[in-house]
C-alpha cells in the first residue's frame, strides 16, 4: 500500500511540472493554431533560452533580469527564424515546416553544445526557502515557478482576448485572407506570434533551469512532451493543452512512485496512444456538435 503522503507529494510535483509544460506547450499550440507550423525546434528554443539565461545570470547576477534578457533575446531570434526560414514556406504543406524546423533544431542543439559544452550549467534559484510537505522539505521556488507560469499564460489569454493585437492574431487564425483584406499585416502577425512562442519557451527554460542542470539535450525531451500534450489536448486548443499538460505531468509524477523517472515517460506515451484510439480529436476539447 502506497502511503497517502507520498501520493500527495507527487501530486504537488505533477502540478508544478504541469505548469512548466503548459507554458512550453501553449507556445507550441499558439504557433500551430495560427500558422499551421509544427515547430520541431520548440524544445530547443526552450533549451537555448535557458542557456541565454545562464549567460545573462552570470553577467548581471540577478535572476529576474536574466529572465527578461533571455525572453527578449529569444523573441528576437524567433522573429529572425520565422522571417528567414518559415516565411518562404507559407502556403506549402505543413509537413515541410516540420522538416525545416527539424533542421533548425539540429543547428540550435549543436550550437548550444559547441558554445556551452557538454557539462550542465546551473542557474541559482532566486527563492531559496523550503517548507515542510509531509516527509520532504519542498522548495518554495517550485511553487514560484508554477505561479509564474500561470501568470504568463493568464497574461497571454488576456492579451489575446482584449488586446488590439491579440484580436489581430485571433482574426488571422480564423481567416487569413479576410484578415489581410481588413488591413491586418498578416505576415507580421505570423512573425510576432512566432516571437511570442519563442519568448514563452525561453521564459519556461529560464524558470525551469534552476531545478535541473541546463544541458543541450534537454530540448528534445520537452519537444516530445509538448507534442504529446498538444495531441492529447487537441491540436491548436490553448485551454486543452494546459489541462493536458497538467494531466500528463500528474500521470508521470504518480508513475514515479513505482518506476524510475526514465520509464515514467512511457506512461505519457501510453496516454497518447489511448487518446488516439478512443478520441483522436483530443481529450480536453468539447465534442463537436
Amino acid at each position, binding site marked *: 500500500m502506497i502511503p497517502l503522503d507520498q501520493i500527495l507529494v507527487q501530486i504537488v510535483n505533477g502540478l508544478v511540472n504541469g505548469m512548466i509544460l503548459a507554458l512550453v506547450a501553449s507556445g507550441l499550440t499558439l504557433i500551430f493554431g495560427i500558422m499551421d507550423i509544427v515547430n520541431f525546434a520548440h524544445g530547443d528554443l526552450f533549451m537555448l533560452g535557458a542557456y541565454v539565461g545562464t549567460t545573462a545570470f552570470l553577467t548581471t547576477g540577478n535572476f529576474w533580469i536574466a529572465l527578461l534578457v533571455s525572453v527578449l533575446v529569444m523573441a528576437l531570434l524567433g522573429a529572425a527564424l520565422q522571417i528567414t526560414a518559415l516565411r518562404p514556406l507559407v502556403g506549402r*504543406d*505543413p509537413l515541410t515546416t516540420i522538416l525545416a524546423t527539424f533542421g533548425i533544431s*539540429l543547428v540550435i542543439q549543436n550550437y548550444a553544445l*559547441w558554445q556551452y559544452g557538454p557539462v550542465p550549467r546551473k542557474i541559482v534559484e532566486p527563492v531559496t526557502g523550503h517548507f515542510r510537505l509531509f516527509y520532504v522539505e519542498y522548495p518554495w521556488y517550485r511553487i514560484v515557478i508554477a505561479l509564474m507560469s500561470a501568470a504568463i499564460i493568464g497574461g497571454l489569454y488576456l492579451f489575446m482576448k482584449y488586446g488590439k493585437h491579440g484580436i489581430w492574431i485571433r482574426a488571422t487564425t480564423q481567416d487569413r485572407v479576410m484578415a489581410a483584406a481588413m488591413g491586418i499585416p498578416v505576415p507580421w502577425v505570423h512573425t510576432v506570434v512566432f516571437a511570442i512562442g519563442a519568448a514563452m519557451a525561453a521564459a519556461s527554460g529560464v524558470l525551469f533551469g534552476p531545478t535541473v542542470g541546463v544541458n543541450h539535450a534537454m530540448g528534445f525531451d520537452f519537444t516530445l512532451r509538448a507534442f504529446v500534450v498538444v495531441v492529447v489536448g487537441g491540436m491548436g486548443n490553448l485551454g486543452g493543452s494546459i489541462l493536458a499538460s497538467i494531466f500528463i505531468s500528474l500521470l508521470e509524477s504518480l508513475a514515479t512512485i513505482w518506476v524510475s523517472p526514465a520509464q515514467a515517460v512511457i506512461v505519457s506515451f501510453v496516454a*497518447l*496512444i489511448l487518446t488516439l484510439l478512443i478520441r483522436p480529436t483530443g481529450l480536453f476539447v468539447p465534442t463537436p456538435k
Partner: protein
Amino acid sequence: MSAVTPTTADDRDLDTRARGGGPSAAYWTGFVVVVGALALSPFVLPEFWQRFATEILIWGLLAMSSDILIGYTGMVSFGHSAFFGLGLYGAAAALLAVRPPNLWLALAAGLVAAAVIAVFVAYFSTRLRDIYFSITTLVFSQIFYVIIFTWTDVTGGENGLTFRQPPFGVPGLFSVPFTRNGLHWFVLAVVTLSYLLLRRITQSPFGMVLQSIRENEPRTRAIGYNVERYKIVAVMLSGLFAGLAGSLYAVQNKFAAPDFVLFLISGETVIFNVMGGMGTLVGPVAGAAFFLLMKEAFSRIFYEYYLIPVGIIFTLMVIFLPQGLLGFLRRRLNQ
C-alpha cells in the same frame, strides 16, 4: 492535403511507365553502371572508404524503406529508428543465442523483430494523418528506445551488445568467414535486390494506390479503396525493409547500441529523403551518400559540431530544393 513534394506525377520515377513500354534502355544502362561501379569499388578504394561505401549502402536501404512512406504515400515517418533498431537487436539476439552464429538466422530474426513492431506501430499510427502520424511514429520510436535503454538485463542497456560476425554460407554446403570485400558484395546484393523489389512494388497496382493516397486521399477513398488497409501495409513493408537494413548493420558492425534506436537515426532517415529527392527510391540512396560524405567532410572541419552546417544546408534545401538533389538535376537536364 497535397503531397510533401510539390511535384507533378509525371515528374517522377513512374514516368517511364506512363510513357508506355518497359523502362528505357538508358535506365538499365545506368543501373548496371552504378551497380558495377559499386561492385568494383573495393578494388579501387582504400580500406576506410571501402567500409564507408558499405555503410552508405546500408543507410541507403534504410532511406529507401522510408521513401515508401514519405515519397510514395505522403506520410512522413519520424520513427524509422524503431524498425531499424529492432532489426539490429533482433539480429543481435539471434547471433548471441545460436552457436555457431548463423547469418540467415540473424537476418530472419531481425526481420521478424521489425515486422512485429511494424504491425504494432502501423495499427495505431495509420489512424492519423499528416503531422499526427509523424508525431505518433516519433513517440513509438521513443517508447522502444526507453524500453531498450532501461531493460539492461536483456539489451545490455546503455552499453549495448557485442557479438561475433557470422560466416557466409549455405547450410549443409559450405561456410566461409566474411572478408571485407565479401561483406561489401553481400550487402550490395541484398540492397540491390531490395531496390528492385521496392521498385516493382511502387510500380505495381498496389504502389499506384499508395501514390493516389498521396495525391488525394479523400478521392482515393471515394473511388472505393480501403485507404487505412493500404496505409497499414505500406507502414509494415517500410518497417520490414528498415529492419533488413538494421540486421545488415548488425552483421557489418558486430555491435548493437540504444543509440541506433534513438530519434536521431529517424531524423537522419528523413534528411536522406529530403536531400536526395522523395518519391524516387534512388534519390534517398543518393541523399544518404551525400549526407554521409558531407558529415565526413564537416567532421574534419567542425569536429562533433558537424550538424551545425549540415542542419543549415538541410533547412536551405527544404526551402529552395524541395525535390532534392535528384529532382533538381532532373529539372536541369530536362531544360
